[in-house]
């Protein structure tokens, strides 16, 4: 297990309570799970993602990640329409372990309300929450 200080938490993403991250770029929000979540889950072996065109409310379950340990739900950090899913994860779910903020992204969302992302936590607030849980 890595110490929290050894995990990566980039400054350019927002963090959700359920350990997803969200990054706004050109009106589209990319979503993944963060380094803490992938470290806790262990080897990710299977990912269930929605279809492009599906719409979800903020907080709604949009898929699952399955590790050797457990099957975990994924929750929408913002509400909106799915405009892309990471199809590389079908054959290489381990990308989530290897590159949680890069090649291991999960979905891209066209948000109903772009400003909803600001209701998520910044790095410092999220880290404080993790340390409290610890």
């Amino acid at each position: 297990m890595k110490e929290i200080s050894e995990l990566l938490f980039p400054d350019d993403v927002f963090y959700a309570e359920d350990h997803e991250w969200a990054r706004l770029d050109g009106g589209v929000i990319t979503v993944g799970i963060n380094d803490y979540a992938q470290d806790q889950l262990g080897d990710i072996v299977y990912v269930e993602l929605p279809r492009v065109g599906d719409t979800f409310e903020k907080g709604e379950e949009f898929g699952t990640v399955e590790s050797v340990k457990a099957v975990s739900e994924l929750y929408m950090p913002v509400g909106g329409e799915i405009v892309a899913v990471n199809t590389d994860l079908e054959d290489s779910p381990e990308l989530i372990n290897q590159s949680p903020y890069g090649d291991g992204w999960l979905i891209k969302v066209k948000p109903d309300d772009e400003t909803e992302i600001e209701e998520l936590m910044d790095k410092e607030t999220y880290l404080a929450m993790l340390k409290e849980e610890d």
Partner: protein
Amino acid sequence: MSKQTPLYDLHLSLKAQIAEFGGYEMPLWYPSGARREHLAVLTGAGLFDTSHMAVIHVSGPRVFDLLQHCLTKDLDRCIGKSRLPLSPGRAAYGAFLTPEGHTIDDTVISMLDEENFMLVVNAGMGATITNHLSSETEGLSPAPAIENLSDRMGKLDLQGPKSAIILASTLEKPEILCEPFPFFSFKGHFDESSPLYGDVRLSDGSHILLSRTGYTGEFGFELYMKPVRLESVWRLLMKEGERHGCIPCGLAARDSLRTGAVLPLSHQDIGDWPFINHPWEQALPFAGDEGGFTKTFIGDEALLRNRGKGFFTYPFAGFDLRKVQVGPDTAAVNSGGRRIGTVLTCVTDVAIDREGTRIISINSPDRPEGFRPKGLCCGFVRLTEPAKRGAIIEIKDGRRSLPVMIMDDLRPDRTARRPISSMLPADLRRSADPNK
């Protein structure tokens, strides 16, 4: 407050993910991950800290009678196809039952000599089984001595086809591997008072009891030693093992390996229901077709009453790697949607996959070229009605419902029973007896 094994700090320094199991804080996996750990035990070797397991030493002139009364296995008829009596240096698998036939725990019993036996039971069960055995000594004179050694014993499991090669380079006398060393036998001891002490010593000076047993279904050994020797032996085995693909392995890989090998986890796959109608009936002393037992033991009558009735436990395999989360509401359902039982264990064995109608493993000799399994969901279901091999049922948790097939075996082409002579380094192989 959870206990720790003497290697806890070492596991932390290796960056293991830690989880509570059986009252101990144990490594779940190391940074290589459970998938690679599982595969290493099929292709190279894996080293497991299993010092959470409990050990009991039982001794005295009447100890055989005590064990025959308490254990499901008939120790007078248990070695090989000809069912020879257990003899010094040999081990057997059995269970301790209540009078109702329910499982208290399962055990591997090692016969040191006519009056001394070592029992390995599950984590946290040392006191329970010690008390259980003590309560059954009435009428035995002299009463057998029963000693819970759990905190005075350390244990490492070296499992995988390269285990013998790694051991050979760490043993003071590697030639002991060339002598007969069948599956479920052992050599040496870690206690100075044992006549076997001195028979097996590692190059770091550690005296061990070396047993050709394990909980992975793969070729390998369990090493028993004094707790103070654990760290030195771990470092020695890792130093020699690294170049043979040996990596530290945690409980997640141990769980998926044992499930694929159709080995039960006590208090999960066997437990508070009759120890019968399951894949582990080789631990029961059936007399033959007539249905009786070859001996009397605690729980025997209840088992015979429940034969072919009540609960039926079967291995199952899915059609891809997805699993269900095992919990109180996880159900096994028949094709008509009716609940017919519960799911006891559900894991992914990452070394196997389906190829047409067959399951094959990365160790199957006839695997297709470039075979790269994604893994298969597998485990055990406990049904309230019998099911035939090949039957398709569904297992479901709150989220998903998966079709699975009732099987009689899971991961094919396991290596546990391979002759040791075929697993030795070339220089030792020449002097080994090819039939043992």
